[in-house]
Each structure stands twice: as structure tokens, then as C-alpha cells.
């Protein structure tokens, strides 16, 4: 079994360190070692949750999660097929490789002002900005996977006189799948980081988890700010878990999975 599912099988290994961390936090706060403005006690963070629910935090979470998933969906829907084709027809990839890597080295957050000019403030620009680096990372990983496809197995495409489309859907896709998942996993955290960051700076009137964190911090509701940050972290873990579950299911056939 891949290492990623192990934590689920042995919950104590995951929970024990977390409890230890929580205990350390409680001790630091309980003994008053740190100013509560900098680090509020765990119980005041927990207490803050009821107030956050009144502030419609659930809606914010849903909104942020929706944006992240939207960005990922766009990135996957474009990145996977295009990546498979470019990896299969490597001549095309050689043509776009240079510009692609140039684009990849520009931090996506630095492009935000440009995105605002091009698509304006709003849902589209938030999702588009998160989709952009996710798309690039899925694309590059998919191309790598498709390029690494077993040449001897691709002989079968010639043998059965498969069309390019059949070759890609029947062979190249499966060959690239492990790399596609690597790309999707990285893209999931990129999307999460960017959506939260953009929400923080997009300005008044917008909502979302990032916006909530920003407003709590700006109004010195520090326990709430901490709670919101923890929620953001939890969403990240959850996303990773979903990707892993999907990966284990779809890559059941990989030889090393059974060793």
C-alpha cells in the first residue's frame, strides 16, 4: 500500500503528535508565557467558533472551497488533455516548452494586478488566478508522464493501428496517470494558497475564508483569526486526502502498489 494511506490505517500515529502540539500550545497559553494577542489560548480559539458561525463563516468556507475546486477543475480539464497530446506529439511540446517554463517562473501572485486589469475584480479573476499556476503544473506533469510512456507498450498502438485519439485515451493516459496525480496534488495546494491570498487582498465587499482571516486580524479578533487559519489548514488536508483516495483507487493496477 502506498505510504499515503498509512496514516488512516494507524490513526494514533497521526493523532498523537497533534495532541502533543495542542498540549504544548495550551501550556504556553495557560502559563501566560506569550501575550494572548500574539497567541490566544486553545480554549479561546474554540470559544471564538460560535461567533464565527454567526459571521457566516460556513458560507465563507463553502465559497473558498468552491473557488479552489473550480480552479482545479479548469486546470485539470485543460491541462490533462493538452498535456497528454503534447507529451504524445513531442514535436509540439518542444515548440511550447520554452515559453511554458518562462511563464512558470513568474509567481502567480505577481500577476494579480494584471488579472484585475484583464478580467476585473470578482469571482472570475479569483478563480482564473488560482487556475493559472495549477494549469501549468498539471500540464507540465502530464507532459512528463506522457513522455515517459513505455515505448514497447506504445508498439501496441501501431500494431492495432489505433488513431491518435485512441492511443491517448487507451494507453498514454494510463501511462501518465501517476504523474498526473502528482500534478493535481501540487495544483490543489497552489489553488488553495492563491484563493486565500487573493481573497485577502481583493478588497471590501468580497467574502471567503481569506477575507475572513484578513478582517479578523485587522479588527484584532485574534482567536477568530487563528480558528480561521486552522480551518484553512484542515481544508488543505482534506483536499490532499481526496486526491490520495482517488489516486489509490485509480492506480490500483500499478505494480508497486501491491508489493
Amino acid at each position, binding site marked *: 500500500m502506498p505510504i499515503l494511506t498509512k496514516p488512516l490505517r494507524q490513526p494514533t500515529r497521526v493523532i498523537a503528535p497533534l495532541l502533543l502540539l495542542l498540549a504544548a500550545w495550551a501550556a504556553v497559553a495557560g502559563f501566560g508565557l506569550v501575550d494572548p494577542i500574539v497567541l490566544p489560548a486553545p480554549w479561546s480559539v474554540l470559544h471564538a467558533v460560535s461567533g464565527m458561525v454567526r459571521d457566516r463563516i460556513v458560507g465563507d468556507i463553502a465559497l473558498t472551497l468552491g473557488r479552489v475546486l473550480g480552479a482545479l477543475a479548469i486546470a485539470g480539464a485543460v491541462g490533462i488533455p493538452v498535456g497528454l497530446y503534447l507529451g504524445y506529439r513531442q514535436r509540439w511540446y518542444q515548440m511550447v516548452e520554452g515559453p511554458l517554463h518562462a511563464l512558470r517562473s513568474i509567481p502567480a501572485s505577481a500577476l494579480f494586478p494584471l488579472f484585475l486589469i484583464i478580467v476585473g475584480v470578482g469571482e472570475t479573476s479569483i478563480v482564473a488566478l488560482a487556475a493559472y499556476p495549477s494549469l501549468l503544473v498539471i500540464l507540465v506533469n502530464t507532459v512528463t508522464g506522457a513522455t515517459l510512456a513505455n515505448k*514497447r*507498450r506504445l508498439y*501496441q498502438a501501431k500494431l492495432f493501428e489505433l488513431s491518435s485519439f485512441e492511443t491517448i485515451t487507451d494507453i498514454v493516459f*494510463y501511462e501518465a*496517470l501517476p504523474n498526473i496525480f502528482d500534478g493535481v496534488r501540487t495544483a490543489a495546494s497552489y489553488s488553495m494558497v492563491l484563493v486565500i491570498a487573493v481573497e485577502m487582498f481583493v478588497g471590501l465587499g468580497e467574502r471567503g475564508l481569506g477575507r475572513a482571516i484578513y478582517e479578523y486580524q485587522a479588527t484584532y479578533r485574534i482567536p477568530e483569526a487563528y480558528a480561521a487559519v486552522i480551518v484553512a489548514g484542515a481544508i488543505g488536508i482534506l483536499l490532499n486526502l481526496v486526491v490520495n483516495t482517488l489516486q489509490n483507487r485509480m492506480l*490500483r493496477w*500499478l*505494480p508497486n502498489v*501491491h508489493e
Partner: protein
Amino acid sequence: MLTVLSTQRARAPAAGEHALRVRGVDFSYCTAASDSKALYSGFELDIEQGSVVALMGASGCGKSTLGKMMARIIKPTAGRIEWSPQFSRRADVVYMDQHPMNSIFPWQTVRGNLEYPLEKLGWSDLECHARVAYLASLFRLDGILDSLPAQISGGELQRLALARCLSWRPPLVILDEPFSALDRDVKTNIIHALHELATKDGMTVVLITHNVSDALAIGMRYVIIGDRPVRTMSDMEFKSPHPRERGTLDYDTMEKALIACIRDGLV
């Protein structure tokens, strides 16, 4: 060099009945000018339709390279590989890789792997089911039809790869070490299965192997290659009927001759 009882030099087959002809083939793995000699230089070989030819030689002598050139997987730098004009489809000539994982799709079940080629080559569902059932029993894959290749043993994998390569009755099959992962008992059965299919469907089989007893179990003609550039060290026929028993005079003489020839070809 060989004057042996029932073995005789293969006659030059009459024109027009060839499954395959290798004509003046050059091949070298080193593209840059280097110290190593060309692997193949002006190599020639004819393979008669319906024959079972064991292509033998020591490890690393270029057997697989020749097999891949015959199947048009790799291109010779010069010369021609001629297929019989009766082979109209690409799938009429199949090469089974010596690593069985390369000849199957690991993401499909054993059943899926057997069905895939037939579906792609336009077999009806009915024909396809019947063929899969037949192959599964012939190659002893009945119990594992719903398993994934990663879940089955190396021997089962090799049987699957072999069954898949033969599934659509290709008129010419080039099998690269197809029995290497099989244990003795199973091997006997599988060699029988291959013999049955080859005779029934009139297949031409090129069996690439360095294993003399595997070759003797099924072959009709023995082409031993060696040296560098590769040349035919010996080209013999062995017409003893099947199944062949070790210990008979014919068998033992043939075995000795083959082993000696392979040794002569060592570079």
C-alpha cells in the same frame, strides 16, 4: 561442420512461400564512429510460411534486435525486411517482448487484456468471448481472469502475454524468450498449447531463445546466429515428431550440435 543423422541443412525455400525475408540488413547501436563493429552487416535470412523457427544464439548476440527488426519495431540502417504480401494488416506480424509487462496493459484485468486486441481488430462480442474462453483454458488463465496483472505471478504474466499475442491468430509471431519465467511442468503444457495453435492456425513462429531444450521442444528449423557482425553460424532442420523425448539418439545429437554452434558464435 555438421553431418548428423536426421538433421540436415535447410534447403533454400522456393520463392513465393516466404513469411519473411531479411535482405542485406545493416544495423548498429552506436551512431557515432566508435571502436565497436556494426552488429549487423549485410545479414540475410528467409523464413518459410508455416515453419517454426528457433532463432538461437548466446545472450547479447543480437537475437532480440533481429526480432525487433523483423517486426519493424526498429529500422535497419540499410537493407530491407520483406513481409509476405499476404500480410495486409500491421497486426499480422506480432512481436512479443521478452518482458511480458511490455506486451500487456497493466491497467486492464487479465480478461480485459485478452479482449482488447480482439475488440480493436473488429471481432464480434460472441467471437471474442469464445476466443477468450478458449485461450484462458489453453493457457491456464481461468482462475485469474478478473485479476490485475500486478496481482498475478511472473509465470502467469508470461502466459497472459503469450495468449494475448496469439489471440487474433496473427500469421507471423515473433516470440522473444516466451517461456523464461515458466516452471518445467507448466512450460511443457504451454509449449503444447503453442504447438497446437501454430499448427491449427497455420502460424509462422519465430522463437527467439538461448534455451536449447525449449527450442528442441517445438522447433522445426534452427538458425544459430553469432559473431560480430552477426552471421548465421548454422541453419539446421530437425523433423523428429512431437512430443520429443530427451534421451533418444536424434534428440541428444541435435542438442549437442546446437550447444556447440552457440558456443562457436560467442564473440
